[in-house]
């Protein structure tokens, strides 16, 4: 089973996000990026499928400040190949990113493409489904269980309320992973450092894919506060006192 995992890097949501002066995008000067949480799950699922059934795992990511680190980390976790895609705009849409990924995937031998089901910045749709559509492959997204059944791949797709639909799909196919069967593994820093000395990242320069998101952001903003919560200040003791009073009033 040969698996390709196109990885999206997204701004770290723990840090404060600033908006540019034109109010059309994030202020990208001070952003720090990290692997999209769901892509980490896709990578984990790919690695555990490889461990169980053999084959290879190739990861691809578009060049950003932190891409090398993310790709070396994937190699340290057990991926066999890592490709960095250069020449794609910082603010590329999902359509553009998917097209660039397809240029690399198109030249690879693979059975499955596993992507993160979604990312925090895909304003124009989820990259995995776009990749599937450009490659004319079947896809299932919101997948939380992947199992090899002979020539077929059996998956569970999550609906609301814990209900899931079971599907079987013949490779080649694209799966949008919601959660790997196990918690994504951790690569020790020492192992990542060692890989950085031993391994090399492949580099591919993207050609213009000829696609756009088809829409323009005319205003980006942080949602208005004020209508939101009444904030309770003070020490932990004082805040606890206030919350207890609110709760007791409700009960009474």
């Amino acid at each position, binding site marked *: 089973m040969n698996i390709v995992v196109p990885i999206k890097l997204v701004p770290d949501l723990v840090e404060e996000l600033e908006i540019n002066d034109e109010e059309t995008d994030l202020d990208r000067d001070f952003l720090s990026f990290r692997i999209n949480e769901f892509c980490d799950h896709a990578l984990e699922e790919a690695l555990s499928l490889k461990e169980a059934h053999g084959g290879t795992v190739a990861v691809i990511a578009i060049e950003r400040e932190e891409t090398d680190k993310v790709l070396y980390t994937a190699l340290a976790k057990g991926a066999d190949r890592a490709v960095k895609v250069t020449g794609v705009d910082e603010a590329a849409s999902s359509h553009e990113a998917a097209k660039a990924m397809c240029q690399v995937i198109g030249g690879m031998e693979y059975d499955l493409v596993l992507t993160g089901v979604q990312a925090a910045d895909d304003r124009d749709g989820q990259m995995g489904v776009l990749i599937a559509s450009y490659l004319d492959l079947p896809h299932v997204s919101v997948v939380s269980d992947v199992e090899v059944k002979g020539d077929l791949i059996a998956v569970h797709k999550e609906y609301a*309320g814990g209900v899931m639909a079971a599907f079987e799909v013949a490779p080649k*196919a694209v799966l949008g992973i919601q959660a790997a069967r196990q918690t994504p593994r951790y690569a020790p820093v020492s192992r990542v450092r060692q890989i950085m000395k031993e391994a090399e990242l492949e580099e591919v320069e993207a050609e213009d894919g000829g696609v756009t998101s088809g829409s323009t952001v005319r205003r980006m903003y942080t949602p208005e*506060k004020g209508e939101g919560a009444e904030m309770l200040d003070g020490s932990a003791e004082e805040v606890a*006192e206030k919350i207890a009073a609110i709760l007791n009033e409700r009960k009474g």
Partner: protein
Amino acid sequence: MGNDVLVVAEHLKGEFTDVTFELLGKGRELADATGGSLTAAVLGSSVDASALGAADKVVGVDHASLAEFNPETHLAALVEVVGHVDPRVTLVANTSMGMDLAAGLSVRRNAPLVAYALDVKVEDGSVVATSQLYGGKIYAESVLDGDSGIVSVLAGSFPADAGRKDGAPAVENVPAPASLDGARVKFTGLVEPEGGDVDITQHDVLVCAGRGIQSDENLPVIEELAGALGGAVCASRPIVDNKWLPKTRQVGKSGLTVKPKVYVALGVSGAPEHLEGMKDAELIIAVNTDETAPIFEVAHYGTTEDLFDLVPALTAKLK
């Protein structure tokens, strides 16, 4: 062309989902405001469309391979319906099913797509959609190019009642595309959740553990607070993915929707997928060290105290 609006009707286990009516209500409003008509796309096998009275008509594909949702067959059939109706805007739910349709439709129709929408309107002939991005921390207003676009709308963005109207609209079926017979994706069954120890939808008081609790070793502290309040512990998705609590405790898009009298969110950021399951709770109290966490937008009271300081103090006061 013109100003017609198409709503993709989503159905599961023989019933249209709530979000279908949310979209129909919004679709009706958009069609009326622009002088267009409202069509519902029904992809299925002998579906009873009599609940879709808010639409002027139904355009569907009727085929055995569409009886249950299937990402491949439903997309192929939807492409036919959109080609036939040629709407100004197609509204798709940003749900598990809708996610498998919207982006594929965008590529196949070469039409713009705006996802994660909370609102959509038509302004001077342009479709404008407001998306919730970056875990709910940022909103973006996008203007769609061209004269036929797709907007995928987050569930819970519009009232469902506005789209609930009985009355059987005229149904027109378009021919099923040949590809439906040779689909590479096969639906093999629905898997129901295992019954849990606790039914969180039945509790008046819920204390929600988010990733901020850091470790399952800290669950007892959360349980003690729930105990002092006479409530139950529920969780955000990462807690369940880590198997610290069973799936039946998960609140949100792929978990349960709850409407308790009191909801205390501890270390929960308030991602759209979580809010979808709890924003209608009567009283929401959020504890999160990040003052910009979106949970504070739906909470009634909030504090940026560290939950590890606050929770024991609160439990002590309630005992």
